[in-house]
């Protein structure tokens, strides 16, 4: 489903965010990407979303080469991906309900569908009573839950979650992880980037370890080893 072929991303002559990275993520797989800060996890997600172009190498999504997609083809690609960003990337001019509904609006869902699904997702992430609040009025954890709800709502083929539990308390962290696992069981591919050792070790799923932009380990039923 997602394929990296010898991908490098160099921001300046001295810094390579990714250096000759190759791996493949299959449909319905749950893959965790681990690594220290600056190891290239976020860059990897940016490349999948075509937010940035690789310096060299090729990236495929559903056998389509991502970096060759034209600007007008990108929305179609991005609608297949539900992304949870490390910095949430919420729309500050819209309230919680509208932020979540936006992902459905762009795919052309009907008003009835949107109303029903958003209410459901808000219930799942425990933000029903915050539906009319704006991002500026939310705590870090609440923002993160809105970002997760937005990533899930349109039932994407893949969920890219960059530190989705970074600002959550242990109770909420567990809830979100259960949710991601449930989504994965329902057939959605999940790529998770995290620092949380306990989460990785408890998942017992495939783990790709990045260090200085290189893959140093790729194990089925892997553990958090740095």
């Amino acid at each position, binding site marked *: 489903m997602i394929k990296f072929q010898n991908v490098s991303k160099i921001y300046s002559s001295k810094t390579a965010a990714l250096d000759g990275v190759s791996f493949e993520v299959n449909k319905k797989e749950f893959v965790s990407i681990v690594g220290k800060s600056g190891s290239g996890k976020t860059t990897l997600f940016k490349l999948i979303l075509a937010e940035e172009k690789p310096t060299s190498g090729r990236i495929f999504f559903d056998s389509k080469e991502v970096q060759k997609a034209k600007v007008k083809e990108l929305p*179609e690609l*991005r609608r297949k991906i539900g992304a949870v960003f490390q910095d949430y990337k919420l729309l500050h001019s819209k309230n919680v309900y509208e932020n979540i509904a936006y992902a459905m609006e*762009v795919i052309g869902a009907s008003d009835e569908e949107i109303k029903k699904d958003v209410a459901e997702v808000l219930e799942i992430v425990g933000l029903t009573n915050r539906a009319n609040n704006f991002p500026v009025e939310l705590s870090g954890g609440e923002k993160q839950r809105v970002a997760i709800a937005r990533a899930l709502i349109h039932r994407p083929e893949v969920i890219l979650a960059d530190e989705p539990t970074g600002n959550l308390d242990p109770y909420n962290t567990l809830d979100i992880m259960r949710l991601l696992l449930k989504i994965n069981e329902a057939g959605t591919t999940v790529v998770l980037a995290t620092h949380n050792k306990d989460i990785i070790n408890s998942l017992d799923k495939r783990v790709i370890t990045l260090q200085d932009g290189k893959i140093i380990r790729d194990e089925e039923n892997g553990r958090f080893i740095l």
Partner: protein
Amino acid sequence: MTTLFKRIFKSGWKNCSREKGLVAANIFILVLAISTLTSLYLLKDVSNFLVSSIQEKVDISVYFKIDATEEEILKIKEEVAQIPEVKEVKYVSQEEALASFSDRHKDDPVLMQSLDEIGDNPFYASLNIRAFEASQYQAVADFLNNSNFTGLVEKVDYYQRKPVIEKIFSFVSNMNTIGIIFSFLLIIIAVSIAFNTIRLAIYSSREEIKIQRLVGASNWFIRGPFLVQGAICGFFAFLICLILFTLFTWIFGPKTEFLFPGLNLFTFFIANFWIIVFIQLSSGVGLGVVSSLIAVRRHLKI
């Protein structure tokens, strides 16, 4: 498609209601731009009125000898009227010239006394000739000098008036050129200020535009609400300008008529109401929409 349009309009309207400060700033700048364009339109007609009243005052007079009869002069008048360059010919008899002089100087006892002392009517019968353009007066004067009735002519005052006529027309022509350049400059300044204000407002939303792209929104889905917002700002700016100009011309209309008889700004405004509505509405909405369109474009490349 209907759902898409409905969502774009709804989103544009919501953005307007939530970003009141930004919208107010945009409307204010658009009001300035529309006011500049409307003022130029009004000034163009005011200046045309003034120019034509100056031009109306320019003519040349042909004075006839005392022994020339009225019949002869009227015959000459008909001939002169046939000259293609001549716009209008007016016959002023000796009596009319005297009456006009007496009327003009009735409050000047010295002049009136002098006139009485002369006894006879000292004024010549004359033809006042008006040409279409300043350059044509020379041709009219040449015709008069070379015609077969030269013997009846006492004098043609073209040569005395020539420098004044040429100065007036050169002034009018220069004023037109300066007016056009000045108008263009003002239009460019007004449009650039409006464009840059809207561009700055949209620049502050660049992060939101980026997020919308990353969530999978198409360019039109992102661009649409900004265009609606621009159109709404333009429409409100138009309404404000229309009210302001109606009030302004209503208040100052009688004063302009006092200064320039025959020119009432309010009457002119009402007579050209729909043209002014068109200018204000199209410039307001057009500026709002086009500026938004250009400003959003550069943020959609991600």
